[in-house]
């Protein structure tokens, strides 16, 4: 299929003509950018699995645990989860548009992803403000400390993702990112889907269990 990027892209990876000794590809059998982003995501998997694992260990070692439904707004967060899944879909459409380099469609889908991602962050900030108003601070008990640690770090990742997508959007809009740079949109998309994937697990573990 035409989706997989070539491991060796002559436009980017070709050695200088006066260095014939380097005229071979010693890189990994995937695009270098993709290899790098997956390496980064592997560290992110360990980061979040560490947080979730710690939560599970603490929870199993605790004599009793509050009902999340009594403390958290599950309904609003379920809607927020839906928003994030929507943003993953719009990101897929943006990547698809980037393959055809349909610039207007790409800008539209990317922009929509940024908007939906920002809504997600906004709702999470609103949730935090309401919780803090009611005295639910991280130092109150283990429930809140683990809750803020997990959702807070995830929120920071989503914010970082929104920022990344805004930069990509501006790059495309102003012609800095062109057809030959379409892999960069895919890399941003991979990060965005990862953030969505983490939230799917966090929502289940923190809000529903």
């Amino acid at each position, binding site marked *: 299929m035409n989706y997989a990027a070539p491991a060796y892209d002559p436009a980017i990876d070709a050695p200088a003509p006066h260095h014939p000794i380097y005229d071979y590809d010693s890189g990994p059998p995937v695009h270098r950018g993709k290899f790098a982003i997956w*390496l980064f995501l592997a560290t992110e*998997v360990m980061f979040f699995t560490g947080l979730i694992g710690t939560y599970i260990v603490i929870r199993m070692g605790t004599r009793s645990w*509050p009902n999340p439904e009594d403390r958290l707004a599950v309904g609003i967060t379920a809607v927020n989860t839906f928003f994030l899944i929507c943003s*993953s879909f719009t990101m897929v459409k943006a990547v698809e548009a980037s393959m055809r380099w349909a610039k207007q469609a790409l800008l539209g889908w990317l922009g929509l992803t940024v908007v939906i991602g920002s809504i997600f962050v906004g709702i999470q900030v609103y949730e935090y403000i309401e919780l803090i108003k009611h005295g639910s601070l991280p130092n109150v008990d283990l429930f809140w400390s683990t809750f803020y640690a997990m959702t807070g770090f995830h929120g920071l990742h989503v914010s970082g993702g929104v920022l990344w997508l805004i930069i990509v959007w501006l790059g495309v809009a102003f012609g800095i990112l062109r057809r030959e740079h379409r892999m960069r949109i895919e890399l941003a998309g991979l990060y965005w889907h990862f953030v969505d994937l983490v939230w799917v697990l966090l929502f*289940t573990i923190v809000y529903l269990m």
Partner: protein
Amino acid sequence: MSGENLGYSAFKIFVILFILTALEVWWGMTFRPDAGYSRLLLWGGLMCFAVAKGLLIFMYFMHMRFERWIVWALIVPTPALILVILFALMPDVSFNEQRDHPVGDMLDPRGRVVDMVTRDLERHDTAAAEPGSE
């Protein structure tokens, strides 16, 4: 919504994810231990939904289904390594008889708590203390 370039229909995956999320919330609200259902039913069902959704995103949106071995080799060992840390920590925290972290009954300002462990223990203790209960 054909997704010809992607090799799959993104819209179909999106609809499945939406349905799974709705079912998951319904499951989480319905089969609660305080409504008389077992915790295994609640957690088992929720984990099934979460894993199914996660796999769909991982395999299709992150297109791992179409990736080469090297990407798999990067990502697969990481959760396994974390499991090692988890199993190393568990004996000290989760299976420690001296543990006492009363987050629920002592610190919940509204006092509404699902006491998953001690409720059963207290029931046994009460039954044992009642005269003639043996």
